[in-house]
């Protein structure tokens, strides 16, 4: 086969309908259908009336489309005494997410850099314990953390919740960057050291610029995690800084109250728009050859 297709490159570009190409699209479209099915149900439920939802035909297209659930979710859903929808916590969430994304990424990159290139003695033990920490469920750490933050005077404050997010994201962020830097050849680092670079200079001028793909992934993970975080914001942020997820959960969750499923679906989709926007916009950094180009240069 390789004999007859000696000049493989130009042939690949000309015949777009090769079986392999069709196979690629077939797989991707089938996978897309699997992934989109729940979203279809959510969208369709969010524009039905409760009477229609009670009939239980979850796949059926709405008999009558109503946008009221969306308006209610944003402006009028009850979340306690107040019935003002989920919009209240939007800016609080933004104020929490920004520092809770930037700082953990910086620290993770710093830790990963130190661990993979400088390897100070005993650091691997610290890293091992840190990774074990990633397996502890959040609630188990709740009581000790409350006491620690209370002692620091940071309980129920914006700085407190950012600190808590830094603590909980450190294992994953460090792991991401450390493993990413492990795949960068040591020659690069040694060459920079020979050129006279110190710890900080090499980090800022060489490693950080090369880390764009992993920074994007880290940002995706951290923004999603912090934006959707509920329990930490609820306990540590303080009443004035409660994130949007608290209102969202108040709208969706109840023990013995009535459930308005159409409003719940609309509220969930609305809340997820911010991480979704980040995913869509991060596209242009997923381009090939950034690290490769830097290696050559």
């Amino acid at each position, binding site marked *: 086969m390789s004999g007859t297709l000696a000049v493989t490159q130009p042939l690949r570009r000309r015949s777009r309908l090769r079986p392999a190409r069709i196979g690629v699209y077939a797989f991707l479209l089938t996978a897309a259908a699997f992934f989109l099915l729940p979203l279809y149900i959510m969208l369709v439920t969010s524009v039905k009336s409760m009477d229609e939802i*009670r009939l239980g035909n979850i796949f059926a297209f709405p008999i009558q489309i109503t946008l009221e659930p969306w308006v209610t979710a944003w402006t009028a859903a009850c979340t*306690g005494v107040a019935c003002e929808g989920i919009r209240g916590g939007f800016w609080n969430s933004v104020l929490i997410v920004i520092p809770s994304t930037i700082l953990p990424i910086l620290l993770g990159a710093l830790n990963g850099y130190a661990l993979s290139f400088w390897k100070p003695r005993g650091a691997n033990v610290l890293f091992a314990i840190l990774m074990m920490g990633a397996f502890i469920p959040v609630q188990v750490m709740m009581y000790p953390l409350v006491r620690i933050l209370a002692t620091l005077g940071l309980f129920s404050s914006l700085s407190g919740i950012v600190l808590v997010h830094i603590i909980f994201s450190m294992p994953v962020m460090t792991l991401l960057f450390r493993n990413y830097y492990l795949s960068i050849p040591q020659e690069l680092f040694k060459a920079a050291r020979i050129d006279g670079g110190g710890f900080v200079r090499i980090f800022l001028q060489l490693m950080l610029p090369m880390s764009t793909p992993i920074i994007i992934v880290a940002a995706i993970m951290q923004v999603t995690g912090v934006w959707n975080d509920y329990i930490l914001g609820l306990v540590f942020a303080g009443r004035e800084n409660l994130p949007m997820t608290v209102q969202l959960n108040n709208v969706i969750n109840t*023990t013995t109250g009535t459930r308005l499923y159409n409003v719940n679906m609309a509220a969930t989709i609305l809340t997820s728009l911010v991480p979704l926007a980040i995913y869509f916009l991060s596209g242009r950094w997923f381009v090939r050859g950034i690290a490769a180009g830097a290696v050559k240069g």
Partner: protein
Amino acid sequence: MKLKLLTLALSLGIGALSHAAGPKAEVIHWWTSGGESAAVKTFSDAYNAAGGVWVDTAISIGEQARSVAVNRIVGGNPPTAAQFNTSKQFLDLVEQGMLNNVDDVALRDGWDKFLPEPVLNVVRVKGHFYAAPVNIHMPTWFWYSKAAFKKAGIAAEPKSMDELFAALDKLKVAGLIPLAHGGQPWQENIVFTAVLANVGGTDLYLKVLRDRDAKAIQGDAFKNVLLTFKRLQAYVDKGAPGRNWNDATALLITGKAGVQIMGDWTKGEFAQARQLPGKDYGCIAGFGPKSPYIIQGDVFVFPKTTNAEAIKAQKMMAGLMLAPATQVDFSNKKGSIPVRTDVDVSKMDVCAQQGLAIMKDKSRQLGNGEVYLNPDQNGSLSDILTAYWNKNIAVEKVQKDIASALKN
């Protein structure tokens, strides 16, 4: 002279300011859905009207709200009041000295004169009143869809457990779902409580749940209760596991199912679908003239503080929440009944009136499992019941397991 005038003016001004804004009360509760919101608003409106400032901190799901309240107390930033259930949930807080008592309000308003005994025993710990009870919910009502009954040819409301089984059989024959149920542990616990109350009777109920008498638990009467409980499982449809209670009520609303055993908050779902008690659906509190009225409910506790304004707020709240008119208003919107029977019942719906009438008979007042058992024991009991409901386990083994779970 000028200094004296200035000081006088300042103190008058400060005095005027502190009169303008009354005592601030931050309240943690878990009433977040539409109907619940309207209900809690009656409290906040009453409090604000009396000159206070209600600061609302609503957190969905009881367990979460309570854990936040506890964490805030531990972290040094307690709320003024926090919601708990009429249960042993807040006993540990009392033990650690983390709550203020409202003895003067209780004595002034005569709580021990009108509160039902199960509720009184919960809020009064070691002679002090540590919680303000605000409502009574009954978890074991039998709801039925009139349309479904008509279709199955059931002419009259069942008046005994046997008649209930006969009705369920008729529903099955008619092709409807006899018992609408959601397969979640707490819902199975409700079905069990209903059977224990109606088949076991008041004495057995107290022996098992309050006294935790091992002999009674291993006895034949309780065996019969468990077998009846398991018998009901055959009338539940296949899709029940995991289902939310609202979805089970929806089956009644759309006429697909006949009966549901659930608390009085179910009225909210019927109301949402514009269905009326007595017309579209029926409510049965229990079978027989002496059937017990199971009591569960909500209370507010007041975290310890020495801040004079906060203490004033706590006492104001405790007094306002138990006032008769507020009680009726709140319960109407919540689906519960007031904690006191000396209220005007004319504005309450048919089922609530039924409930209040039963409550007047002290011998029919029984607490829910969580009134007598601590959270750990209640949870262990729930685990055993839900396993028995879903699997084929010998009833003697279930009795043994329950006896050992409730032992400590």
